[in-house]
């Protein structure tokens, strides 16, 4: 039986002086599953993804990504595990400016366990599949749509078990939202990666078989 992409148990996280806390008794995302996490803006969706990625420290509970307990790892070991097992897609892409599309994908590979000899083939193949014709173009010269494709390629480059997409379509119009989500979901399926996507857009619900609400994971005044 394949290892789940994400397993959260008894997770609790709160910001200092906040009147509410994230409280996740149990959340599991199976390998290859696509899950939509919904909820209004500022409800803690991004925070949960950051806790899963090991960018924020949970108060208690466990976070396991591809069988690795992220919450028990510290420092470089946690960074290394994130680079190996998690890909992240952001609303504003967060590409490395001044670098080419190819180099942006390389940036994900240089911290992965993939042998250097395979980097170029992997990056070019991924960019080509996602429709980037000129992999050597600087990302600043690409269109917004192309930049998003580069961001998706970068998130999938290291063959992560889990892709965390944080409001990937928040700044797009409905037509482009469809296109972007088609791209993200088809790429994740093609790579066999699980997807945990956050959105406050109700129209996204139709794209996912499984939907979780952040509201059910909030304890305290904000609920």
């Amino acid at each position, binding site marked *: 039986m394949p290892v789940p992409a994400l397993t959260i148990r008894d997770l609790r996280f709160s910001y200092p002086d906040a009147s509410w806390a994230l409280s996740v008794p149990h959340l599991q995302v199976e390998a290859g599953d696509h899950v939509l996490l919904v909820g209004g803006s500022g409800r803690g969706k991004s925070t949960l993804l950051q806790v899963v990625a090991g960018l*924020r420290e949970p108060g208690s509970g466990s976070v396991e990504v591809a069988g690795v307990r992220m919450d028990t790892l510290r*420092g470089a070991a946690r960074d290394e595990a994130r680079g190996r097992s998690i890909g992240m897609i952001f609303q504003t892409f*967060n590409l490395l400016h001044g*670098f080419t599309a*190819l*180099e942006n994908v390389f940036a994900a590979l*240089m911290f992965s366990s993939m042998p250097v000899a395979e980097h*170029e083939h992997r990056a070019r193949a991924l960019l080509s599949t996602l429709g980037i014709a000129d*992999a050597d173009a600087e990302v600043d010269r690409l269109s917004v749509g192309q930049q998003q494709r580069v961001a998706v390629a970068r998130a999938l480059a290291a063959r992560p078990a889990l892709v965390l997409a944080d409001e990937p379509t928040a700044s797009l119009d409905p037509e482009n939202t469809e296109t972007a989500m088609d791209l993200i979901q088809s790429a994740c399926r093609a790579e066999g990666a699980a997807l945990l996507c956050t959105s406050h857009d109700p129209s996204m619900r139709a794209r996912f078989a499984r939907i979780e609400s952040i509201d059910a994971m909030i304890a305290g005044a904000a609920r």
Partner: protein
Amino acid sequence: MSAKTLTDWQIVMRSLRARPLSTWITIGMVATSVALLLVLFGMRTAARGAFDRGSGNIHLLVSADPSPLVAVLNGIFYANAPSNPIAWSKYQSIRGAFPYQWAIPTQQGDSYRGSPTMATSTDFFSKFEPVAGEPWKLASGKFFERPFEIVLGSAAAKASGLRLGQEVFLTHGSGASREGSEPDEHAGHVHTEYPFKVVGVLEPTGSAHDRALFIDLESSWILHAFDRRERAGISGITTAADLEDDDRKVTGILLRLPTRPGSDASAAMQQQFDTLRRDTAIVVAQPAQQIQKLFEIVSNVDGIFIGMAVVVLISSSLSTMLALYNSMAARTRQIAVLRVLGASQGRVFGLVLTESLVITMAGALSGIVLALLGGIAASAWLKASIGLVIDPTLDPRSTVIVLGGAVALGGIAGILPAWRAYQVPVADNLRPAA
């Protein structure tokens, strides 16, 4: 050809290229300060070398100057004309009291257009070496062989424009000669009665001797005898036959003691030094010792200059630190993205520290090239203009010390910006810009 992957080095170089003005200005500042330090070190070495070159293979210098240091400055470096003469009989008694390898008499006091004249014997050219192991060489002509022949040091020849076969008139004292500009009232008088014929021009030696003109002792004595006779109301040309004992004076004696074959040191040095010192009418100096003393005296000034250059180097390191530190504000998102992709805090710290080291190393290497090119240009100019020979190569020890110091400072300068990068809060810097 495109890259096969991305490396830390490429990230560092891309980051530096992303802010070219700041990078080049910082490199320029480091280069300037490193070049300044190397030039100062080089000047110190060159100055030391220039002083070392003047005394050549002399063991002891005897004169009637007030102190040994003044004796060396006057007798070897032509600082001033020695005011107190030594009788010829004293010279003969010193020479006869010990089996010296040679004892060369010198007399200073005359000049030509401000250049000092040294009256001496032919041994000065055949036995004395202005630089140990490097005997005199003629650029043209010959050494003097008889009275009223004059040999020019290389810088003196260049300054005066004199050529072989030309005649010159010397000045008794340090004032202008007949061909020079208006002499002042304190200047000596020009001996138009006695023309000296230029018979030789010397190759540069890199020592103070290059500024001097050389004549034989008898000529000088005749000039002085002429003055004595004129004061006594005796007119007419003075010749060697008119010389009296009182005319035969010298202002210095260059001595070389017996040595073992292949050695420059003499076992008799201390004993002979002490023996000569007992004569209160003269002073005796060991030139090497006096030059060392002179450098000890000026070492404080030397230290101030070196200190100033070190301050400039530290300032350039502070600039490196500020440039990098300020750039961090614009790079927090890039750092956060690298962290999300799997870069550890230590790796990010290393990237920024490497940037600082690259800037410093590039600056230091540029500074070395700058100092080397400047040294070659200055050396060529000094040799062409005043005949001063200065080695333009950089002292390897100083270069390594300056390079090491600059790189160490660059490393220290990178710590604060690298620490700032280390502490970038990742999650907070991934949010969309407001």
